[in-house]
């Protein structure tokens, strides 16, 4: 037998069943417990508008049972109750409701101070509906773009008529409906070649463009229409009265749908309260299905239309409903008399509210409303009892209280009481909220409609992210090798890089004493060539470039137009152009920046981003040369490839561009090679005796040399002068990016500069305050204990005090002094070895 599982109990499914109808058939009447007071709630609208039937399906919370087709094997759990919705211990909150008035968290639990800290975890546990499935990985959903002339939201009679009319005019139409379409209407749409029909696909919102996201069953449809037609119809008006939220109280359309589509009855003994012609049709459906109609409350004008034999209370009203876990009786009033009638269902058809949230959020866009969605909102009488907002459990007295506290407009009441902010987004409660305010403040700005915003229908976060294909994690060719070596990986921009291979001190010593390798394939790598390449590069960089001979390299800063450092790297002169490197993660930005200037200046250059095509491995340490020689590299002596320079080498048979640089402070060869050869080269280097080091070792190695890391040690407005790198800028060049700005600010004396700090013993933590005398003088940006020197080394920003910069500071209890040169090997003899 086909069945779904409800909390361990098998529930049979019949053809055409929704989860709601399947559960109703086996006698389930309580579908959830309410948001704040844990009141029992049952089926009410059956059109996907109210919050009552939100259940967890296969671990996914807040699924609308009434519009979700039942499938065999569905695991359904009802929400917001413990231990079960039938006997919910938390329903005590309804008895304690005076302790938790609207906005209680603004005014209770404030004193003593610890009260909120104790209460907060409890409140957070109890509050809210459903539980987000944290253990489930989010599904990757696809998105599809549709380029149409017109999008129609809603496949009722108005929507279908609009679709056919537009198709007749030759327009390409997309029609989306949250449920399935009526078979006859669907056939007429399919016979037109111009109409795409999306069923079980909810229009979520209308954005600028217009862009209309439609949440389909298997994908997100992104529709880009020239115009939008909103034909979402109307929802029957909610009616607040005491007990009006009990299971057994129905909206007319819901009750009629239950009979027509599923052959089920809302109850055995029914009381009907209606005020519309449509309501009488629903009544006829119920009567034909064989319910026992106990009484019928209608306006006198409709009394004659009710079938004979039914007890009619003309011009009567519903006063209140009784029952504990479901409706047992209603109290009606008519002609000044009250009477209690036993029943198990109360069906309401008192008016319509347009479902116009979509149209209202699209002001200024080409959006037209047709059918019931375009009805003007007629406000109901002001409610004095009962729940105005079912989603957030806001009752009429709560509005009264908030009003008396001074929240005297629809928008203020909405924010303070959260009425209209639940899953129904005001579909049921907004007319009552406005009627309440209009009753006190009259027509006008105070009782204006609240702002409609997307989403109008609930949407999963994974649906909102559908179609996102950005590679959020970039990996070098050696990623697998790092993992095999037990590396702890960390983020570095969009890249994943080894933080360490488990022992940063050992990795550090391998660089200082032996030979070590690091994967630096993440560096930005860009080739520039063409007839104007030299002129272009000369104008881009603040250092001299035109005097470089093939084989030479130069370190340079990159400045923006304001003269601020935003990146650094090296310039390599090749025979036929320039090879430029940038910091890891800086390549994309650098490429856009280079292209911008090439175009602005109208220079003839080719710019090729080689970041992903080339790998790079830095071989560093006193034994680095020996390692390369073992692997057959010829002419790696200090004369053939001195510091700093570059040349082509074959290492282990892999063709490389070797850059003789020295970020670590030791003899170094940075081997740039085709990415496809990366693993071969890496394996050969390890076989030849080099061990790998990660970022943590590198941070210490470079800090001992006093090298900056752009981004860590620099600020957005760091000029070369502030960084104490004036030699990196040639102000005698005719022009370079940022030169006019540097000239302008060159005359202003420095108030801040980045300095190297040697500490007597331990290293202060990064971010520590620098104290000079008894005054604050700046802060530490990078700091480590140097094993080779035996004391703390740091970089930090110092402020000028009076007329000079202090040269002695204290940070975190340790005294330090400003040093002019690199901490380690200030003469650079090890680099030049």
């Amino acid at each position, binding site marked *: 037998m086909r069945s779904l599982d409800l909390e361990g109990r098998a529930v049979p499914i019949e053809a055409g069943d929704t989860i709601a109808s399947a559960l109703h058939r086996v006698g389930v009447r309580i579908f959830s417990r309410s948001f704040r007071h844990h009141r029992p709630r049952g089926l009410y609208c059956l059109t996907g508008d109210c919050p009552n039937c939100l259940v967890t399906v296969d671990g996914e919370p807040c699924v609308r049972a009434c519009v979700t087709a039942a499938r065999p094997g569905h695991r359904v759990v009802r929400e917001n109750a413990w231990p079960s919705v039938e006997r919910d211990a938390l329903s005590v909150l309804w008895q304690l409701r005076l302790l938790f008035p609207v906005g209680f968290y603004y005014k209770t639990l404030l004193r003593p101070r610890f009260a909120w800290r104790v209460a907060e975890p409890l409140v957070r546990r109890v509050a809210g509906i459903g539980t987000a499935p944290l253990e489930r990985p989010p599904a990757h959903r696809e998105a599809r773009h549709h380029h149409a002339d017109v999008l129609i939201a809603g496949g009722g009679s108005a929507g279908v008529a609009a679709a056919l009319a537009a198709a007749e005019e030759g327009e390409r139409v997309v029609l989306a409906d949250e449920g399935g379409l009526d078979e006859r209407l669907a056939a007429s749409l399919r016979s037109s070649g111009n109409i795409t029909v999306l069923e079980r696909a909810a229009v979520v919102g209308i*954005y*600028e*463009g*217009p*862009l209309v996201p439609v949440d389909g069953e298997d994908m997100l449809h992104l529709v*880009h229409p020239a115009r939008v037609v909103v034909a979402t119809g109307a929802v029957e008006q909610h009616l607040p009265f005491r007990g009006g939220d009990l299971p057994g109280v129905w909206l007319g359309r819901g009750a009629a749908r239950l009979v027509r589509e599923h052959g089920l009855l809302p109850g055995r003994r029914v009381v009907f309260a209606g005020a519309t012609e449509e309501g009488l049709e629903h009544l006829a459906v119920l009567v034909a299905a064989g319910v026992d109609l106990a009484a019928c409350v209608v306006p006198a004008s409709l009394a004659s239309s009710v079938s004979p034999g039914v007890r009619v209370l003309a011009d009567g009203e519903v006063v209140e409903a009784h029952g504990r876990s479901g409706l047992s009786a209603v109290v009606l009033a008519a002609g000044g008399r009250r009477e209690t009638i036993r029943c198990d269902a109360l069906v309401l058809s008192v008016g319509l509210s347009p479902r116009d949230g979509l149209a209202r959020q699209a002001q*200024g866009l080409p959006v037209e409303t047709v059918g019931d969605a375009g009805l003007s909102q007629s406000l109901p009488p002001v409610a004095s009892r009962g729940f105005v907002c079912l989603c957030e459990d806001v009752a009429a007295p709560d509005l009264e209280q908030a009003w008396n506290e001074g929240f005297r407009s629809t928008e203020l009441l909405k924010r303070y009481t959260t009425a209209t902010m639940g899953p129904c987004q005001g579909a049921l409660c907004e007319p009552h909220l406005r009627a309440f305010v209009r009753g006190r403040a009259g027509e006008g700005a105070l009782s204006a409609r609240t702002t409609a915003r997307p989403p109008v229908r609930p949407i999963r976060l994974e649906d909102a992210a559908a179609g996102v294909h950005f590679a959020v994690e970039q990996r070098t060719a050696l990623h697998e090798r790092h993992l095999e070596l037990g590396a702890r990986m960390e983020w570095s921009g969009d890249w994943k890089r080894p933080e360490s291979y488990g022992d940063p001190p050992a990795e550090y010593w391998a660089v200082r004493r032996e030979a070590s390798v690091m994967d630096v394939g993440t560096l930005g790598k860009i080739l520039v060539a063409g007839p104007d390449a030299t002129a272009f590069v000369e104008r881009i960089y603040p250092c001299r470039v035109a005097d470089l001979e093939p084989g030479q390299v130069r370190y340079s800063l990159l400045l923006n*137009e*304001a003269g601020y450092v935003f990146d650094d790297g090296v310039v390599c002169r090749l025979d036929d152009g320039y090879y430029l490197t940038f910091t890891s993660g800086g390549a*994309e930005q650098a*490429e*856009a920046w280079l*292209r*911008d200037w090439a*175009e602005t200046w109208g220079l003839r250059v080719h710019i090729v981003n080689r970041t992903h095509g080339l790998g790079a491995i830095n071989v560093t340490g006193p034994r680095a040369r020996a390692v390369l020689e073992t692997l057959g590299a010829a002419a790696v002596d200090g004369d053939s490839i001195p510091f700093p320079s570059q040349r082509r080498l074959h290492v282990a048979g892999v063709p490389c561009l070797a850059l003789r640089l020295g970020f670590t402070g030791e003899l170094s060869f940075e081997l740039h090679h085709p990415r496809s050869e990366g693993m071969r080269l890496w394996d050969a280097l390890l076989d030849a005796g080099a061990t790998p080091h990660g970022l943590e070792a590198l941070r210490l190695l470079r800090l001992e040399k006093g090298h900056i890391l752009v981004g860590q040690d620099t600020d957005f407005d760091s000029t070369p002068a502030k960084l104490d790198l004036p030699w990196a800028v040639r102000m005698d060049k005719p022009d370079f990016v940022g030169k*006019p*700005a540097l000239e*302008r600010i060159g005359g202003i004396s420095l108030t801040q500069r980045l300095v190297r700090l040697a500490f007597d013993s331990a290293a202060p933590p990064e971010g520590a305050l620098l104290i000079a005398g008894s005054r604050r003088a700046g802060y530490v940006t990078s700091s480590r204990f140097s094993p080779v020197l035996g004391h703390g080394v740091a970089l930090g920003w110092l402020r000028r005090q009076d007329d000079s910069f202090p040269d002695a500071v204290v940070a975190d209890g340790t005294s330090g002094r400003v040093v002019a040169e690199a901490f380690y090997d200030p003469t650079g003899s090890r680099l030049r070895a």
Partner: protein
Amino acid sequence: MGLRIVCPTCGSRQYTEFWFGGEVPDPGEEEFERVWLRSNTAGLQRERWFHYAGCRRWLTVERDTRTNEIHAVA
């Protein structure tokens, strides 16, 4: 937002394929104004967009900052 830009090389594309590069300064503007001052136009503005997920070219786009309507792309 559904803003679309008709790239001369790639065709009509979602704006998320582009990086915004700021307004195009007037030719007469001095360096100081170009670097430091923004006109913050309410209306038609010429601006630069980089098509990073497409042809990787810089485009000059004329956009109405009040309506996000795009009038010209070059």
